């Protein structure tokens, strides 16, 4: 039998900025646009004073801060170019709201270009 137990815990979270730690991965050739580095550990602030970060914001952050060349190979308009899959925690962003997907601390976001070779 489990011993009767009582747990009290309290948390206080406070801060002027909510810096979010994310892991971004690029594959299928997209890594060539960011110095051939596939895995990026980054800290991203919510944009325009919002209290949460959504994929739309992350995309423009990536374009500004990580993409070093040929940004048209990464984005088209305000979303990714055709042929790029976006995965948030190993799940297609189509299933979580695409550009409106909310991100949380320690999320893993993968951008991968579809391959055609064989």
């Amino acid at each position, binding site marked *: 039998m489990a011993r009767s137990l009582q747990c009290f815990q309290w948390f206080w979270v406070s801060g002027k900025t909510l810096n979010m730690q994310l892991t971004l991965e690029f594959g299928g*050739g997209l890594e060539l646009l960011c110095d051939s580095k*596939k895995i990026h550990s980054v800290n991203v602030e919510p944009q325009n004073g919002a209290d949460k970060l959504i994929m739309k914001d992350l995309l423009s952050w990536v374009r500004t801060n990580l993409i070093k060349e040929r940004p048209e190979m990464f984005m088209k308009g305000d979303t990714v170019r055709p*042929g790029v899959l976006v*995965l948030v925690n*190993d799940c*297609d962003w189509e299933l979580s709201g695409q550009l409106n997907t909310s991100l949380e601390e320690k999320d893993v976001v993968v951008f*991968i270009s579809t*391959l055609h*070779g*064989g």
Partner: protein
Amino acid sequence: TVDSRNGLTPDMIYRYSRHLLLPSFGVEGQANLLKSSILVVGAGGLGSPALLYLAASGVGRLGIVDHDMVELNNMHRQVIHTEKYIGQPKVKSAAATCRSINSTIQIVEHEEALRTSNALEIFSQYDIIIDATDNAPSRYLISDCCVILGKPLVSGAALGLEGQLTVYNYNGGPCYRCLFPTPPPTTACQRCADSGVLGVVPGIIGCLQALEAIKIASAVGEPLSGRMLLFDALSARIRIVKIRGRSMDCEVCGENTTFTQQKLREFDYENFAQTPLSPAPLKLNL
């Protein structure tokens, strides 16, 4: 008796004994496989291992579509072809190797390029299609044919040090166009001939394609539908991710589709993807 062995002859029982011993595969799985027909489009880097393992495993009828000739610069990854076939059609070379490892199954040679004019007729002769091609317009043409004919499609790709694998149009799952309604810009479509590929990477993906086709044909296990395998050879990392389901708005498999056999025959895939269906090989310039 013939019944308890599902029509397997003593020779088949001996040849496939390691399959028959598997409780979750067994005589029924093997009998299903022997009754099935699988078409492999492309006898290159992906097609080589896929064809070897499909022939060995006892697929009843195995078709091969390709129009290329074997070249010396294929040999680093297209292990189904031997040096003596250099300069000869890949289909002939691949068929000869398949027959040399399993003379008891039917091998069908389609020595022609896949086009809108022949795709439906060829595909309709098979239960399962394997996309082992190397260019974007072929991938759209193959997927569209599979949707129209209701065939599951095992799709693999490999380039550089990476590979990708999924099963399309299976059991209500998405088709290629559900994921990629718009073709990528041609500058994003690198091919092995342009960018190189580590030979064993299509080897791994092609084997995985054979496995998925065998699972579907034998009705054993859970095929990789609605999921995609992403392989990174350099770091030895593999992800299996969840992808979107069938799109109601898909132009080919969606609810209000107007895509018919006639439309497919008239569709200009080369213009759509801005790439030829049978790209000419580039010269190496070191």
